[in-house]
């Protein structure tokens, strides 16, 4: 359960895969390991986004409020990055995430994330690359749907 495990977890993230290990270590050191008990909410829909979480252990449900009541839209597990869109785009939480087992996460606050991006351009390039890929992927999906 040492910081090296956290670095490994960060490395598995698509966003950080190409970042130098030394930077990831700093990030892991500055990040906070946060645990949630089963049934506790990691994020709540509509709340301001102050941090993103990397799930190190356990599973959680992603639930969206609908007129017909809460609707589970996805399940996240180990190595999932939760809430990164919220801190990148500065929008309120778009869904509620509830722990379905005891969860261990690495909490990366918005402040920490942006500091890393500003201080280490390699990270920001990676972020741009990953987001561009996602955009491209989304465009392709849209194009596919049109046909």
């Amino acid at each position: 359960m040492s910081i090296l495990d956290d670095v490994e977890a960060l490395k598995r993230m698509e966003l950080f895969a190409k970042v130098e290990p030394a930077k990831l270590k700093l990030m892991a050191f500055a990040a906070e390991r946060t645990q949630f008990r089963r049934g506790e909410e990691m994020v709540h829909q509509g709340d301001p986004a102050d941090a993103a979480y990397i799930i190190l252990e356990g599973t959680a449900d992603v639930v969206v409020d609908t007129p017909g009541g809460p609707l589970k839209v996805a399940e996240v597990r180990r190595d999932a990055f939760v809430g990164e869109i919220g801190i990148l785009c500065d929008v309120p939480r778009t869904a509620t995430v509830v722990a379905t087992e005891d969860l261990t996460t690495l909490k990366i606050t918005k402040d920490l994330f942006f500091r890393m991006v500003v201080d280490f351009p390699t990270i920001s390039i990676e972020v741009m690359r990953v987001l561009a890929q996602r955009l491209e992927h989304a465009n392709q999906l849209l194009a596919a749907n049109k046909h």
Partner: protein
Amino acid sequence: MEHNLFRYIWRNSWRDQSIILVVVVIAQLFYFVSLDLPKQIVNRAIQGEAFKDGAATAALLKFTIGPYEWMGLPKLTLFPGFELERLPYLVALCFSFLFFVVVNGWLKQLVNTEKGRLGERMLRRMRYELYDRVLRFPISHFRKVKQAEVATMIKDEVEPLGGFIGDAYITPAFLGGQALTALYFIMMQSVWLGLISIVVLAVQLVVIPLLRKRILELGRQRQLTARQLAGRIAEGVDGTIEIHSNDTSNYERADIVNRLETIFLIRFELYQRKFFVKYLNNMLSQTTPFLFYLIGGYLALTGQFDVGSLIAVIGAYKDLPSPVKELIDWQQQSQDVQIKYEQVIEQFTPDGMLPDELQRMIDETPPAPEGGLSAQSIGYHEEGGARLLDNAAIEVGAHDHLAIVGFAGSGKETLGQVLARLTSPTSGTVRWGNADMAAMPEGTIGRHVSYVGDETYLFPLSIVENVIYGLKHRPIAPAQYEGRALMHYQRRIAEAKRTGNPLLDIHAQWIDFAAAGVDDESGLKRRIIDFLPVVELEDDIYQFGLRGRIDPDEEPAIAARFLEARAAIHRRLQEPDVNHLVEAFDPAHYNRNMTVAENLLFGTPRGAVFDVGSLRDNKVLAEVIEAEGLKPALIAMGAKIAETMVELFADLPPGHPFFEQFSFISADDLPLAQQLLNRVQRGGLDNAAPADQQRLIAITFPYIEARHRLGLIDAGLEGKLLGARRRFAETLPEEYRDYIEFYDPSRYNASATVQDNMLFGRLVYGQAQATQKIFRLVFDIVSELGLKSEVLAVGLEHGVGTGGRRLTAPQRQKVALVRALVRRPRILILNNALAPLEAAAQTRILKSVRREMKDRCLILIADNAALCSVVERVAVMRDGRVIEQGPLDRLARPGTALSDLGVGLQVAAS
């Protein structure tokens, strides 16, 4: 106050002055004799005048009068004296000389002591009278005077007056007497020498005071500029925000430089002139002996004058210049202090001072007048200022709740002050029932009217003392003194009487419990606690209580109850939903959520000895680490941390916030850490210099395994650290025991906060919402055990800091509200008192205050006009007049002035 200093002094101290004057006169007699004896010793004993007719003996102390031939009286021998031979005669004369010298010295000392006491008494009286006047200044005067200047005047400027007062009459009497005696003595020996002395003295007495005129003027300027400097410095302190935000620090520097320059010039000129006068003075007095030697010597040589007389004259003259010089000094000083005195008095006699009979202490609380307040044709304008009130009139019934609202600059705050008699209107009268408020003693107003302004000043005491402050009108029960304390008390009273101070004893019981409707202190505290929810202050005080401390020796019962809470909390923390949130202080286990240093010390440091910052050089701890064989492990751990830090932070620019947040090593020290690592790695950790080893060990002290997660503390190291913890506790030398209080699960820790005592453990890092959950949990248990009022009582002891700055502005206002409510006033005036609170809280608090003030009078002055929807009656002001007043439902209609303020029917309906 008396404008002439001398009259002031004489009126207040003529008795003491007279006694000392008598002593001074007696001293002169002894002085004269001590002057005459040397002559007798030389002439009669040594030169043998007394034995010149071959007589074997001479009479000592023979005392004769006459013969007075014109009265036909023969020479009368009152005392035949003792017949002594020549040597015993000399010895006897010498011893009498010694005796008179001793008595003379003793009398001098007596006079000086008495003078000193007299001066101190007068100083005390004057300071008291000045402060008494400050207490009676009209409020508007405080806008003109600077507090630093008032304080300087009372503290510093009257000080030299005190020194002078003892000298005011006695010095001229004493020195003048001494000079005259000496002069008379010289005249008796030789008229010529006497005349020379008189001429020189006359020059000194006439010329020197003339030269000193300019010196006096400079002295006055010096005082004025120094006072202004004090005021200017206070301005700089008050205006510090403006200075920083406008970048005017250099302008301020220029101003101070300019003032210091002026002061320097004044003082330097003063010194130049002073020393010139001194020089002149010395010159004159030194040249006189020259004339004595010349003329006296000539007279002696020609046989017109004997040598003994010449020696005596020179001896007498030696004593002459210094009294004369001191007399001149005295004269200068007396002019100087008279100027000072007048200047101070001038500052302390503003117009519109409250007559002292209005502040006279009233023993029984006078009944409040029946009826409401009625203000008629009230006008008020400040000296040279705008007209703030212009023919304002207002009526408030004894049971009314009235809101006064108005347009900007309408003068409503001034009206609020006038209704509380804090400001005296320039025209018009305020009546309470049938009584004119202008003539009402503060004993009536200050006990039946509570006033809260928009910025309450809190005294730097605890919250509860600030609340109780409103109940300290008079000593309710005298303090009980016994034995020695009683003697001291009586002496204090006697001294106070002598100095015109009132006989008020600060140690008496001043709290008027009856006014608050309670019997004793604990009742009062309960009552204050009851008021906390009314002003929404309870949560804040609860927080203060959790962070507060108590002394278990003084309050064993409460400490025991908090220990009960500790046990209950720990039982609750066993339950599965919360068992992961707190790691308790367990002497037998390493606490992974505490730092290494905290684990070693395992107690709350008191003072700086075991403070984290100074642990590196702590010998006691170093010895324990050495003895426990922990050194190599900690050194290795320190090196590991240093390495990691260098690796992680090397690329960050200095000043990066991460350094402060996460690093064990500051940005400046990072290169040093690198060098340290290089050094120790070259030679091996074991061979490192002791200082380097110490540094590495110190790096480990703030390390928290659960938070920093470097995986440095395994079970083996934990065991060793626990061993060191035990050894530290067991071997701690006696002289260090007071600097730390160990964690003991069965004892209340006086150095730790109430919360830490109840929780007795550390929050576990990285548990979501742990702080909130634990706060809730503690709150529940505290409520369950009925301990909330105990925690609140601790919270009430929270110190508010200078000017209440340890509280927020809303908290200060809420404390002021509790103070206003706790004495159950007949009239409560809230003069924009709720302004620092947010709008919703203003409405809520006003509603609950209204419930407390049911059937009594509440006057609310508010910028926030919407607040008037909470009360039934409203008055609207504009340009210093009340333009509308009446029930809310009548005024809250379109077309009224109230509606112009944005208050409409829909608000009224809510």
